[in-house]
């Protein structure tokens, strides 16, 4: 299976026609326009645009995913598949590299600012407790472990174990998110510490927030993979959505360890 390539197929496999790319692009494109409407005081228009854009994007993402699944079901016959999996894995690697570059920009900004400011944390920053975040960190690290176990279980054919472990991972992710939400709530309501307080506030909320967004997306990926497992759409050879969810999850986890070290410990 591994050696079969696109071009050795017996018949011509042409790129699939799909309406979803253009619909998704337009749907996503409504979101910045909503922000502009909001900024210019057209709150209702903004809401309308945001809801429409969000809905269109969501529907087209689902449609796109559905058509990919359908394609793949056909490709099993033609032997197109193993190469696709190889392409997809490579895509994921480079996608994560570009994600790392975005976080890289934030980290560079953080360390450069710290290096330049004498008194750190700057005035106005409340004491940031490390106890609860440390527990959250352990939970997230443990979830990486359960995620990997789930993948391994699936590859050994233990579907029930795999499903359970995936759910546990997603649950641990949600617990992590609630820890973070509680921490944010406490800092904002009790200490009035917000993004506008000082540069540390900016860095703290934007970096943990951007990471939190990634955790949320990771949880969605995990649940999608769970759904496909439940529907029996994966087998030992083709389970890219499971691999993608787990790689993404490890990535998010590693970024968090760096964030925890940078924002809380030093």
């Amino acid at each position, binding site marked *: 299976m591994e050696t079969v390539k*696109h071009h050795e197929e017996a018949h011509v496999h042409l*790129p699939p026609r799909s309406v*979803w790319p253009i619909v998704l692009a337009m749907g996503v*494109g409504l979101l910045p326009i909503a922000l502009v409407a909001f900024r210019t005081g057209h709150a209702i228009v903004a809401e309308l645009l945001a809801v429409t854009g969000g809905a269109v994007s969501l529907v087209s993402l689902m449609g796109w995913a559905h058509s990919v699944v359908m394609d793949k079901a056909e490709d099993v016959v033609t032997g197109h598949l193993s190469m696709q999996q190889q392409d997809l894995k490579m895509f994921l690697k480079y996608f994560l590299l570009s994600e790392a570059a975005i976080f890289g920009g934030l980290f560079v900004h953080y360390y450069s600012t710290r290096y330049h400011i004498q008194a750190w944390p700057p005035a106005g920053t409340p004491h940031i407790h490390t106890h609860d975040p440390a527990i959250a960190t352990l939970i997230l690290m443990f979830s990486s472990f359960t995620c990997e176990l789930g993948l391994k279980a699936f590859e050994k054919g233990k579907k029930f174990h795999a499903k359970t472990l995936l759910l546990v991972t997603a649950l641990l992710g949600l617990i992590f998110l609630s820890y973070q939400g509680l921490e944010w709530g406490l800092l904002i309501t009790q200490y009035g510490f917000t993004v506008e307080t000082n540069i540390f506030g900016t860095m703290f909320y934007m970096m943990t927030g951007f990471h939190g967004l990634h955790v949320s997306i990771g949880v969605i990926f995990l649940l999608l993979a769970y759904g496909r497992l439940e529907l029996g759409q994966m087998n030992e050879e083709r389970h890219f959505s499971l691999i993608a969810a787990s790689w993404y999850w490890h990535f998010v986890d590693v970024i968090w360890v760096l964030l925890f070290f940078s924002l809380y410990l030093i």
Partner: protein
Amino acid sequence: MSEAAAAATAYKSSWLNKLDWFVTGDHKKIGIMYLWFAIVMAIVGGGFAGVIRAQLTKPDSGLVTPEFYNQMVSMHATLMIFFVIIPAWTGLGNYFVPLLIGARDMAFPRLNAFAFWLAVPATALMFGSFFVVGGAIQTGWTAYPPLSLAAFSAGPGVDMWLMGIIFIGLSSILGAINFIVTVANLRAPGLRWFKMPLFVWAWFINATLILVATPVLSSALAMLLADRVFGTSFLTVAKGGDPLLYQHLFWFYSHPAVYIMVLPGFGVISHVLASFAEKKIFGYKGMVFAIMLIGIIGYMVWAHHMFVAGIPPSLQIFFSYMSMVIAVPTGIKIFSWLATIWGGSIRFTTPMKFGLGFIFLFVIGGMSGILLANVPVDYQVTDTYFVVAHFHYVLVGGSIMSMFAGMYYWFPKMSGRFLSEKLGTWVFWLFFVGMNVTFFPMHIMGIQGMARRVFTYRPEFQSLNELSSAGYLLMLAAGLIFVFDVLKTAFFKKGTLPADPWQINHVQNTLDWKVSSPPPEYNFLKIPTIE
């Protein structure tokens, strides 16, 4: 299986077929859409340049308001970089990388389409920003804080600009990943890395540059956007932010972006010169390593844009040296091109003319670049027209000339019709002369101290500015003739050409000249094997 039968089984009948271009995943159609997009944007961006040149014909012509002038300057740069040059290369790359490696399509056709369509909302944001309160961005395409912060640029124009660039950046990133995977996984059997045509190599290195640099720009722009919209203080000094860091992150992308805009051109020029000198390219491996070196060193020169921004002397020295070092691999390429045409039997076709013109102009741009890499020289001429002259020699003389070469070279393949050689000669000479008349005087204005990005100037610069504006008219004429010829040939001429219309492939032996012109939808009925 016969060709007809293959084509028939290729698509199941579906209502989608009626939407054709809007739903296609075909790399050739997407490539052509990118090229049309770039041509339309070039007309608009060129028009903006016309407003700039018209205003500058007299010291205080009063033709447009200073605010509108600033918008024109900022948007001219933005459009030419993000909406003309980069999409045009993506278009040619989309069309020819799969052909040259013997693949039927890019690795991810739908993602390819998505990346293209993302350009639509980005364009809407750009042009929409002219119609909001405060108008479009006025800060120049660099959008340095604090000027670009809400305190000094209040309207939503800057927000729209930022989001537009983030969108077009996302489009670039997705495209780049697609190119990398395509080149890595979809090469025809036997096409080893060091047998790949140079255009493919150039695009591959280009894609790695885009992949790592663009997200950093996105993150800088997102910080700026957050400062403006959510009141964060990433770049706001009053709350401990650091505007200088924006410059670092910005140029960490935007210097490699210069190479992103010219590397595919290097690839095109290698094909064109070798084809019409009837020789193999000289020093193939050296060329490949030179592209790689440019890619790597290109990441280590960004702060030469910031010599006067207050960075430590040690950094200035480092970036100054690195900027000079990057001339070495570039020189390797120039000399290899010269050695390629040396002793060849040269055919002066239109693409060849543009190829030779490219070498001449790009060398001038490169030389003024080495001058600017000297810290003291840079202190003297920073933000003057000398810099404007330098980068227009690189971008117009380098990117646009090589793009013309590529368009004339590959147009017969894409459409099945030749562009007019006669008109092409006019386009070349008008553009070549016009470009020099427009931009060469700017070297002198710059050394004499005329500041860039300002709507007015001291009276003594008037005659040079008049000359420069006259040159613009020549370039405009060239552009219009080119667009006319493209429209005429694409829509009003009929017919197809043989696989190798230039009759060059007995020397070049690349796969693009082995399929019919235009190629069938599936490119290759049987995937070729490279000996």
